[in-house]
Structures are given as structure tokens and as C-alpha cells.
């Protein structure tokens, strides 16, 4: 463990009182020095190289992780195929559902352990992993468990087609921003529909996926139904390109999503892609400003802005821009940036050195292109990867910080005068994942919601997620939906 001063909380300037540190105990997790791959129900050594996973808040090495090579991928796909053919596709939906209910329960039982491990490996504040990531992951399994024996009611089949059928083996590649939650989004619907899976967690955040493998063992899930392969881009490519994979599900960057779409072209593989975003969070002059400010903060600083649907462009009506900005800055000064395991922490660590470099680069470009940069006074710890909550004002639509996904705690502020102009600016992006609207006028909210080309519209709220609520993008934010009845479609014939 590094000295505690390296994780001290900062950014309390201007406050009359200090918080005492309230760290969540780490003793609940047991991180092994090294991990193998989870194939066919057991941990096996990888044939390839290995890599280290570190805690981004301390740069401490947490464990040595196997990097699955092509032969490992082949083994895992074979195990998944065998489990699909011999066990999982033959099992009744009711029985499949019961396994998923079991998994949901075990996730709830071990929730604290998962939350702490997630915060250590990912760097997100414990209050988020504890109150958002882990409960939602369990809820996702609980939700899809209930679908497993009701698929013929999902409206995805007709009398002629007969009951819906699973696709077979699903290859799933997930990102590092919500490691366990994205795993749940992928595995729960796949299994409920009768598919088996080979899943690759992101290389910087493998630990909760490996702990999930243990949950599968505790739930007595038949071997091969879930296989977890750790690794980086090469491993992901091998899974996507494997000829015996029937379905590819990916969450991550638009760049990689595009490459995947090209790889599977001409095949029979079904694909769902949940990619980048550059969401507009639109504040009208009649909005409840204090609530809107909370929504802006939640929209861009939740999970350090490592959120594909983050409200990274604030569109604020000119007449209230000054007031909104003043209140936003005041609120930002109260954000506590620091130790992810501290229960008072609002903003945790940037997930990796690489991501930090990208955020710094784009922020520097924002400044160079003429936008005004502001961050609250903020003492950042000496070790680890940190970036203060930052806003840019005077941003034009042509600026790179208004067009590119930064995937960090950086907000670009743009003003507008009329609702039409707001719509035009909001839709002026190749992305279309989410949007926010703040107004007290019902008809305006509904009109705005209908005009915004985005898969999720949060009105007078932001960054809300639920297993019953379909999530996914328009345009270059990808295709297919995860969550809800719609989430079944990507896993059925």
C-alpha cells in the first residue's frame, strides 16, 4: 500500500469545514497475485503473455493477468459451443432463468466485495460502484432471468416463425468504464435467450470479471456457458473474427466499432455496437436552475466523465448562461476529488495513463483553439492519474472539444437562443447516443425529445439507467439496444 497522503482528498477550498477521511475497508477483497483465464468452468493458464493490472489511484500493481492468444480463444469458443449444443440450448427457459436468478442473488450477497474491487481496479468512487454499478449489475441479471421462460411473449416471433431461437455462441467485448455493469449488460440477456458466451473484459479492468467467474462457479452454472478471456486488442480481435462465433456484442469506441463492423461484413454474425457519444445537455431559461446544475454535474463528472452517454456539451440558453455558469462553478468547487475508496469522494481517478494523456491533449487543444478553460482549485494526489473537473466556455461548434469524445471530466459550454437553434446544435454531431433537456414546460420537453436524434433522452434528469430501459445509439453511436424487451432482439434469431 502506498502512503495515505497520496490519496488525500482535495478541492475543499472555500469551505468552512473539512471532511475526515472515511475510507471503505479494503480487507473484504482478496486479490490473487496472478489470474488465468476462465474457460469451461475453471481457471486455466493462458498460452500467451501476461500483463499487469494496476490501481489507477495509486499506480500499485494489483495482479498479473493472462493475455489470451488465438489458441486460448479457440479453446473458449469450443467450450462455449459444446455447452451451447449439449446443455444450454436444450435446457428449459425456466431452468436457465433460475441460474440467472442465482447469479443475481450472489452478486447482491457479495455486493460490497464487488464494489470495493471495482473501485480499486477502475478508480471510480466507492459511492458509485456501491450505489450504481453493482446494484444495477445484479438488477440486470434479475431482470433478464425473468425473460428466459417468456421469450415467446417478447413480440419477436410470429406463428410462422415459431418460438424465438438463440443464436449460439456470443463473443462479447466490453470497456473499462463500467466493468461489472457492462459484463451484466452483455451476459444476462445472452444467457436468458439461450446463448453461451465468451467475454473479454478491458485490459485495464479485468478483476471484477474474474471475480464474476467465481460467482458462476458458486451458482453451479454449467461449464462453458460463460467463458472469460482477459487480454487486450489482439484477444478482442480474435474473438470477433472467430468463425464459430455467431454474435458479436461490443461496447467501446466508435473507431473499434467501425473495425468490428468491417470484420464481420459478409458473414452471418449478428452484431450490436454501443459506441461513443457527444451528448448535448440542453438547459432552457425556464429550467429549475439548481436542479439543472446538479444534472450538468452528474452528466459530465459522474464516473470522471468516462461515460459514453456523458453530457459533454452543455447547451445553455443565452439569457441564463451567466447565472447557470456561476452556479455551476460554485457547485464544482464543492466536488471532492480523491481516493476512490473514500466514501466522501465525488470524483475518482482517470482509469489509465493513456486515457489521462488523451484528456490532457484534447484539453490543451481546447485552450489552443481559443476556448476558456476553468477548473476549481483542487489539490490532486501525487500518485495515480488525476484530472480536475474542467469546463470550457466560449466553445464554438467547430472546436475539437465540441466534436470529439473526450471521455473525461471535461465540459464544453455552448450557448443558444431559440429551441430550433438548440436542436440544430445538439444534432450537429456524427454521434447520437443520448441527450438531456431541462425545462419546466411540458410541451417544449416533448417537442425537444422528438427532435433530438439520440437513443436516450433524459428530460429534467440525466445519466439514469435501468435494466428495463432500452439503451443504445443513433448514427455513429452504434446500433442495437441493450436493456428491456428490446435487449433480447440482439440475442435471438
Amino acid at each position, binding site marked *: 500500500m502506498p502512503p495515505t497522503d497520496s490519496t488525500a482528498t482535495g478541492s475543499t477550498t472555500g469551505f468552512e469545514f473539512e471532511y475526515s477521511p472515511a475510507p471503505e475497508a479494503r480487507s473484504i477483497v482478496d486479490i490473487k497475485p496472478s489470474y488465468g483465464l476462465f474457460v469451461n468452468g475453471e481457471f486455466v493458464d493462458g498460452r500467451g503473455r501476461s500483463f499487469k493490472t494496476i490501481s489507477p489511484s495509486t499506480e500499485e500493481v494489483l495482479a498479473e493477468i493472462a493475455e489470451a492468444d488465438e489458441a486460448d480463444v479457440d479453446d473458449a469458443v469450443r467450450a462455449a459451443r459444446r455447452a451451447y449444443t449439449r446443455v444450454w440450448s436444450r435446457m428449459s427457459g425456466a431452468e436457465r432463468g433460475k441460474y440467472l436468478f442465482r447469479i443475481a442473488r450472489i452478486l447482491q450477497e457479495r455486493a460490497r466485495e464487488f464494489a470495493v474491487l471495482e473501485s480499486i481496479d477502475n478508480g471510480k468512487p466507492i459511492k458509485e460502484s456501491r450505489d450504481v454499478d453493482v446494484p444495477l449489475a445484479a438488477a440486470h441479471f434479475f431482470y433478464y432471468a425473468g425473460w428466459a421462460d417468456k421469450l415467446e411473449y417478447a413480440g419477436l416471433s410470429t406463428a410462422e416463425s415459431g418460438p424465438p431461437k438463440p443464436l449460439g455462441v456470443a463473443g462479447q467485448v466490453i470497456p473499462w468504464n463500467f466493468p461489472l455493469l457492462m459484463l451484466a449488460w452483455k451476459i444476462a440477456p445472452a444467457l436468458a435467450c439461450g446463448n453461451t458466451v465468451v467475454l473479454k473484459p478491458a485490459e485495464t479492468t479485468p478483476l471484477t470479471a474474474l471475480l464474476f467467474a467465481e460467482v458462476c462457479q458458486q451458482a453451479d452454472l454449467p461449464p462453458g456457458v460463460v467463458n472469460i478471456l482477459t487480454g487486450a486488442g489482439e484477444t478482442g480481435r480474435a474473438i470477433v473474427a472467430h468463425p464459430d462465433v455467431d454474435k458479436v456484442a461490443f461496447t467501446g469506441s466508435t473507431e473499434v466499432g467501425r473495425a468490428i463492423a468491417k470484420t464481420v*461484413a459478409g458473414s452471418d454474425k449478428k452484431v450490436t455496437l454501443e459506441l461513443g457519444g457527444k451528448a448535448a445537455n440542453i438547459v432552457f431559461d425556464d429550467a429549475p436552475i439548481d436542479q439543472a446544475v446538479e444534472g450538468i454535474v452528474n452528466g459530465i463528472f459522474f464516473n470522471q466523465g468516462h461515460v459514453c452517454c456523458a453530457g459533454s456539451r452543455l447547451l445553455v440558453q443565452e439569457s441564463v448562461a451567466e447565472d447557470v455558469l456561476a452556479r455551476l462553478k460554485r457547485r464544482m468547487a464543492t466536488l471532492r476529488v480523491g481516493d476512490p475508496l473514500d466514501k466522501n469522494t465525488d470524483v475518482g481517478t482517470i482509469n489509465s495513463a493513456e486515457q489521462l494523456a488523451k484528456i490532457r491533449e484534447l484539453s490543451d487543444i481546447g485552450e489552443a483553439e481559443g476556448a476558456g478553460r476553468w477548473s476549481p482549485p483542487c489539490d490532486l494526489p501525487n500518485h495515480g492519474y488525476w484530472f480536475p473537473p474542467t469546463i470550457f466556455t466560449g466553445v464554438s461548434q467547430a472546436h475539437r472539444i465540441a466534436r470529439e469524445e473526450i471521455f473525461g471530466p471535461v465540459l464544453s459550454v455552448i450557448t443558444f437562443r431559440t429551441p430550433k437553434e438548440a436542436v440544430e446544435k445538439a444534432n450537429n454531431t456524427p454521434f447520437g447516443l443520448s441527450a438531456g433537456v431541462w425545462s419546466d414546460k411540458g410541451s417544449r420537453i416533448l417537442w425537444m425529445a422528438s427532435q433530438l436524434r*439520440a*437513443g436516450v433522452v433524459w428530460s429534467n434528469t440525466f445519466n439514469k439507467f*435501468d435494466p428495463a430501459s432500452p439503451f443504445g445509439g443513433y448514427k455513429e453511436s452504434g446500433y442495437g439496444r441493450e436493456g*428491456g424487451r*428490446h435487449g433480447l432482439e440482439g440475442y435471438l434469431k
Partner: protein
Amino acid sequence: MSTRLDVKKTYKLYIGGDFPRSESGRTYVVNDAKGSFLANAAQASRKDARDAVKAARSAFGGWSGRTAYNRGQVVYRIAEVLEGRREQFETELRAAEGLTAAKARTYVDAAIDRLVWYAGWADKIAQVTGSANAVAGPYFNHSAPEPSGVVAIVAPSGPLLGLVSVVAPVIVTGNTCVVIASEPHPLTAITLGEVMATSDLPGGVVNVLTGSVAEVAPWLASHMDVNGLDLTGVTDPELARDLEVAAAENLKRVRRPGLEDLLAAPPLDRMTRFLETKTVWHPMGI
């Protein structure tokens, strides 16, 4: 008995509600089923394809903004006008494809009935594919379909029923489209364009190109202002793969090649493939 020379039709493209020649000035010979000359069809170019996309994009806002009821009526109107001109289509099908009178009648009947079937879907698809979502919190939350935008279509070879079967599901939900007609049998597609032009369908909602699929389709597949690509009529697997690769550049929604029995009930995914799901949240409270 005096003989009268019949007035032959010049077959052009159908773009933005107009019938322009190809800007390239090119035509290609279309023969009838026996191999005799039927007509010169316009051979569309890259520029024509781009003009068609532009027309489809301009029409999208207005068409998708209409009420579903209104779109349903317009598609129904196409069926009405087609019914009124059915003899012409039967004659054309017999000439172009060498169909028997009975077979030609069957296809025209099916095309008209298909339009009526899709017309009825306009205001029901949201009820069938949308949902009210019971989220764990005090929120109103619902999901509804919206059109993807501009869809490029490679039509299958059935010049009337084939074309109607790929175009109707795409436009009835609010998309606009650019369709490449069957390469060997393009003439009926242009005649169908005349039907659409007189059916209250706004110009640009359907744009019909005739010419070489291998030449024109890649421009549509790689066009950054096209949102969806329906490869139903592509028969060369290598071309289909190349088009899907090109479509990946801006993550177009792709329907891979493959044609169902056109006389059977159509699969729902002819509509749903080119629909997005929008989910709207709002807090509840007093």
C-alpha cells in the same frame, strides 16, 4: 386501315419528384424477355446517386415529421393509383419478364395488397415495437421507434413486387430512400415512380436510380449522409461484403442480401431494421 405509330416513353430517373436524365448522358439497352429491344434506360452515375441522396435527405424532415396516420394514407394512395393503372403494369411485366397473363396479374395484385398491408402499419409499428418501461424509480419512461433517416436500397429482380416489397416498409415508418432498380428490368420501376409522383408522396421520399448495381451501389454504401443500406437485391457475395465494409465507415444499419418468398407474409425486420429506438425519461413528482 391506317397504321399509327405509337409514342414511346423515354425512361429516365426519378429523383426529388422529378424525372431527370442521368447527368452522365448515358443509357443502356433494355431488352424484353425474347431479347428484342424494349427501351434505353438511364444509366445512373455517381453524381446521380449523390443528387438522389441529397433529395432524400431534404425530404426526410418533412416526411418523418408527418403523422403516422398521414403517411399511412399516402402509402394507401399509392396502392389506389397502382390499382387504376394495373393493366399497364401487367403489360409491362409480361413484356419485360415474359410472364404469363395470370402470373403478371398475381404480381400486380400482390404489389397492390402489399402497399395496403404496409399502409396499415404506419400507426401501429410504434405500438408493437415500443414499450412503457417499468424502471425502479419515480420516472416516466417509454421507448418508441423512429426512422433511421436515408436508406439506400438495392432492389431485387422482381421489378414491381420486388421493388414495392423493399420500398414500402422503409418509407411507411418515415424513412426516405434511394433505390437502385433491378438492373435487367428497370423500366417498371420508373413507371412505378410515375405512380408515386401522382400519389401525394412528397418528392424525394422515394428516389429511383437505374443502371449498374456494381457501379452505383458503392457510392451509396460509402455516402456519409446515408443511414441505412438494404442489400436485398445484391447477388454477388463479394460485392455484398464490400458494400457492407463501406457502410461501416459511418455505421450504417445494414440488411444483408437475401430475399424471402415475396408472395408470403413479409418479415417484420423489413421495417424494424431501419428503425431506431428512442427512450425518454422524465421524473414524476408534484
